[in-house]
């Protein structure tokens, strides 16, 4: 694999040369942009892309990915924000240029922690998946070539030998003319998104991948490449952070659409242990309410539940001392020896408050995290009841919570449509007797604070939300220079990135 030396390109290129820079609407972002841009455009591009990635996240929770509705809504968002989405259209240069530059700007903002990196990678992968899904068939091979992914199809003989197994394994092969379908033999680890869900045939360490499923392989390569690039970018970050006007913008970017994290600050110490039982029925969202109930009944929660509930309690204001007392009292009721609690469990509580080990001050889980990661299994009570319950059991639970039948019916309809957070908002409206809850729910601690705001008339517990306005900058030569410095640092870090990539692809 070779990388040509960087050549400074003119700001605008003529005719065909412009199109040659960006042959496809989907990009692997292998080379950084080299233009000078104004600080205003820097900010504008960054915010537009954050909006796009946030839209991708929201659509992914509200709709099944790949469905017609998901596809059409995502296309509308991309179009609205003026990014590139379709092949063979005129005037594609500018949208693709915006796509390219904004991607690299966000790398600076989202390389700064593991959670941010994970979020960024997930949304970028979903964007690539969408674009690949609408890529014309005749362009696939050319795209693969441009991204340096070399997959080879197996022979017809090999194909025939495994026909039944490959057909039984690959959902995409339903109703397909088998004779004309190419199948690629790929090391299983490169087909992670296919084999994890048993959507591909595995034999002796290899995955037999139909062309239709090759997108999963591409996504895997993209993930690995981007993950590595973000790690390298993080190492070069100090140079960028030294620019006093860029760092606040980058910090703001990474928080503005991933929402509040409900870390403990103003609310600490305002809850007493005596209040928790009544608070759980009045102000806890169902996911925390059921954890609390399970803890009271069983005097124990497994790891997933302790994490989800423990961090939530921390977020509503429990102190470390209160948390230790709370869990210990309850576990001892379950016949646990106090010494065993002190040895086995208190460390984890102190750890979650940032007092042990890495001393990371963990933040409560968001709805997204609860819905999408670590599903509950036998003996667990964590997760999201709207997402992780059978409809019949969810109905019973809502009846227990005294939700009226019409409300339950609406909630079940929302759940059927995968609108779990909206279903929880409906629960909020029913339990607080309001017609419109007035917020878009994305976090259990948000549910709690909004509930307390209503129940207490806005006193004491309400957490002050800060929504700093986007800083307004007038264009000027100096600011343009600053943006150039940022991109120069980006170039510098990405030269290391390219070296890393070179090593990566040569392995």
């Amino acid at each position, binding site marked *: 694999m070779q990388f040509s030396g960087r050549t400074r390109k003119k700001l605008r290129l003529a005719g065909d040369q412009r199109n040659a820079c960006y042959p496809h609407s989907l990009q692997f972002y292998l080379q950084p942009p080299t233009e000078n841009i104004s600080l205003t455009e820097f900010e504008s591009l960054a915010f537009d892309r954050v909006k796009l990635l946030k839209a991708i996240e929201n659509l992914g929770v509200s709709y099944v990915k790949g469905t017609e509705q998901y596809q059409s809504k995502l296309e509308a968002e991309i179009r609205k924000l003026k990014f590139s989405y379709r092949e063979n259209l005129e005037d594609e240069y500018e949208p693709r240029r915006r796509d390219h530059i904004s991607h690299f700007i966000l790398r600076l903002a989202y390389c700064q922690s593991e959670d941010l990196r994970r979020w960024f990678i997930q949304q970028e992968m979903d964007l690539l998946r969408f674009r690949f899904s609408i890529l014309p068939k005749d362009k696939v091979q050319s795209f693969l070539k441009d991204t340096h992914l070399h997959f080879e199809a197996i022979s017809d003989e090999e194909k025939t030998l495994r026909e039944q*197994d490959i*057909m*039984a*394994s690959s*959902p995409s092969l*339903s109703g397909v003319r088998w004779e004309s379908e190419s199948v690629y033999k790929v090391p*299983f*680890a490169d087909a*992670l*998104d296919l*084999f*994890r*869900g*048993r959507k591909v*045939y*595995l*034999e*002796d*360490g*290899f995955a037999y991948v139909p062309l239709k499923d090759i997108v999963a392989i591409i996504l895997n390569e993209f993930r690995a490449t981007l993950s590595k690039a973000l790690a390298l970018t993080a190492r070069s970050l100090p140079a960028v952070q030294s620019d006093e006007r860029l760092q606040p913008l980058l910090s703001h970017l990474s928080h503005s659409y991933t929402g509040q994290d409900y870390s403990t600050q103003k609310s600490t110490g305002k809850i007493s242990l005596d209040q928790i039982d009544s608070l759980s029925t009045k102000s806890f969202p169902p996911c925390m309410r059921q954890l609390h109930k399970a803890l009271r009944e069983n005097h124990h929660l497994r*790891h997933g539940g302790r994490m989800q509930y423990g961090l939530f309690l921390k977020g509503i204001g429990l102190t470390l001392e209160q948390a230790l007392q709370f869990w210990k009292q309850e576990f001892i009721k379950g016949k646990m020896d106090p*010494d*065993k609690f002190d*040895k086995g469990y208190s460390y984890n509580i102190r750890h979650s408050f940032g007092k042990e080990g890495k001393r990371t001050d963990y933040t409560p889980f968001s709805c997204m995290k609860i819905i999408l990661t670590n*599903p*509950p*299994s*036998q*003996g*667990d*009570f964590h*997760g999201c*009841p709207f997402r*992780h*319950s*059978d409809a019949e*059991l*969810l109905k019973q*639970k809502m009846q227990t919570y005294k939700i009226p039948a019409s409300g339950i019916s609406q909630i079940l309809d929302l759940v059927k449509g995968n609108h779990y957070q909206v279903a929880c908002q409906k629960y909020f409206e029913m339990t607080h007797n309001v017609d419109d809850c007035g917020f878009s729910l994305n976090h259990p601690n948000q549910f709690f604070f909004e509930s307390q705001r209503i129940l207490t008339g806005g006193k004491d517990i309400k957490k002050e939300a800060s929504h700093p306005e986007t800083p307004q900058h007038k264009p000027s030569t100096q600011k343009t220079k600053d943006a150039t410095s940022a991109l120069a640092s980006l170039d510098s870090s990405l030269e290391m990135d390219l070296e890393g990539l070179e090593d990566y692809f040569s392995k």
Partner: protein
Amino acid sequence: MELFDPAELPELLKLYYRRLFPYAQYYRWLNYGGVTKNYFQHREFSFTLKDDIYIRYQSFNNQSDLEKEMQKMNPYKIDIGAVYSHRPSQHNTVKLGAFQAQEKELVFDIDMTDYDDVRRCCSSADICSKCWTLMTMAMRIIDRALKEDFGFKHRLWVYSGRRGVHCWVCDESVRKLSSAVRSGIVEYLSLIKGGHDVKKKVHLNEKVHPFVRKSINIIKKYFEEYALVDQDILENKENWDKILALVPETVHDELQKGFQRFHSSPQRWEYLRKVASAPQNTKNDKCGPWLEWEIMLQYCFPRLDINVSKGVNHLLKSPFSVHPKTGRISVPIDFQKVDQFDPFVVPTISAICRELDVVSTTEKEKEENETDSRHRVRDYKRTSLAPYVKVFEQFLENLDKSRKGALLKKSDLQKDF
């Protein structure tokens, strides 16, 4: 088998670590031929001492060092962790963030407690010969997939000492796998989805993946005796109602009537199969095409702990560790005879130490003429531990062969240049 008294454990452990623990084989395993420099030296061990004192980040220079330290500390339990970037025992002196877990065997932990909702004979920490069949099926299903689907060659199955089994996959390429790929492998091997609030935990697609079909074929060999006879899952209304919860309501009445007519689980199961496959029920999606299999899988399919397998830095109890509650040794399982493996025949530390005493008495004169090292090498061979160490040695021999094969390939390639 000898009864185990926990109060005797400290003294028994001293004897065990001095004369019976197979240090040579253990070191040979974790050293992996010494191909990677400092591989053994960068390995983390954790010891649990008397009174539940837990000490992490132990590491050793070599076999002798390991041996001395184990005899000195007399651990109640030994856990093996990852191979790190630096010596674990010096992790505090390394610059923050630089000390990182780098490689680890891919491990699986299967625990009988996770089956409490589908076994009737025991619960929690208890096991018996009836429910042990769940472990046998789990080992067969998982091992076939690791070998045939993923191409993993070196799988070591170990009895946990109490109520489950562990598997250590030791191929060189496997030890280097990322967390994401490990997670993916566990997901591939998992069918049971959902916790307390989900009744039906297995849903098969119209197309049945070869992994699922092959798993069903394994379960079929055990199902009648295990589920219908031993567990008697359709014995009475209380129990068959649990199965009806997995079946569409539209056929409940029909099944209830049929179940009342018959007198045994096998007869009732046969009736259920007929109803499930009857044309008027499979049309209109009353019963899915795979209802029978879904029930079999929910009752018999392996239940893995994903968090054990996906992390590189997760610690797992070591083979040949003694279980402090049962006294049983965590012994390797001979996979060729997995159906005959009986956890209740596995020796306790009490038993093998007493066997040693017996042997010592009868061979008192011979011992006087032997050197210490030869003496030590032979001791476990005189006890019930011997067959299990032999299984381990066979495993090590296969590892050696692979390594030599790889070296030959390397030298061949080098000659080309």
